[in-house]
């Protein structure tokens, strides 16, 4: 039993940063859902009012940049965990 615990602890110490990096990559999940919703709504809006394409595009890009931010934070954290 003790051997198993020490083994698990050693494994966690060795692989901790790697596990953390993997967990940090989960931020992509929320960003993906958010970007999908934003793009879908933009397509709907364009279909409803094709003459407003320019305004919709700028708003969509801004929204995508905001949604992408969380994914970028996660990526940054996992890069730092892997290479630091």
């Amino acid at each position, binding site marked *: 039993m003790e051997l198993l615990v020490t083994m698990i602890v050693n494994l966690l110490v060795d692989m901790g940063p790697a596990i953390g990096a993997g967990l940090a990559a989960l931020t992509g999940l929320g960003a993906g859902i958010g970007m999908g919703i934003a793009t879908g709504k933009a397509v709907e809006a364009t279909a409803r009012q094709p003459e407003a394409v320019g305004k919709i595009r700028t708003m969509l890009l801004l929204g995508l*940049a905001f949604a992408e931010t969380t994914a970028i934070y996660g*990526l940054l954290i996992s*890069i730092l965990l892997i290479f630091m």
Partner: protein
Amino acid sequence: MLVLFDPSMQMLAISEELSEKVFPKNVIEIGSFAVNDSVISGFIVVVALLIVALILRLTIIRKWKTTPTGGQMFLEWLVSFFDKSADEMTEEYSGLMGPYTLGAAAYICCGVLVELFGLRPAIADVCACVALAMCTFLFIHTLGFAKNKHRRLKHYLNPINIITDLAVPVSMTFRLFGSILSGMVIMDLIYIVVESIWYIGLPVVIPAILTPIFTLFHALIQSYVFASLTLTFVSEAIEPVPKKQKKKRKQKGASSAAEPSV
């Protein structure tokens, strides 16, 4: 194609090779005064931008015509694009914000595109991003206080707004830094992996296809996003009077109008 004799060993070699490239290296180091390669490429970008501006001033702008040539059309489009969006968002300060956003966007865009010449991108260093974000932060607050004077302090009666304002430069810094660094790391990874492929032509074709996605796309999108976010925050800061007061006034007006009738 990809020869993996010992996958784990190869992965280790790749990650070691990458970790050298992720963080900037100090080129000049005198005591606590250190200059890394990102700073040097940043200065190269600044000098290149100044020279290009001088050349454009001396060639195209001197021969300004009513029937425009290609270069004139491009310049007009570029300047009026930023001026127009600055006009829409920050009405009276557009003379200040238009040139600032154009300058910041040009620096970010060219600072990332230096990567195509084999230099380290100027923006892939936290300090460059902090500097740009602090410029925006100062613009937001100086213009906010210049427009609303002491009335802007009422905005801070709600302490959450202090945190919201302090989070702006941090989030702008890490958005810029993260996206540029990730693009650079992915491109470096591709360059390293491509070296081990000895299939004729592929080492040339693969980076040529992927560079526009990870470098060009990122450069243009991030510079546009930085400019439009700056304008959004400034326009938020120079909004005349907080909305809550307007509502109260309306309610008061409604109640005072209702009282006499009752």
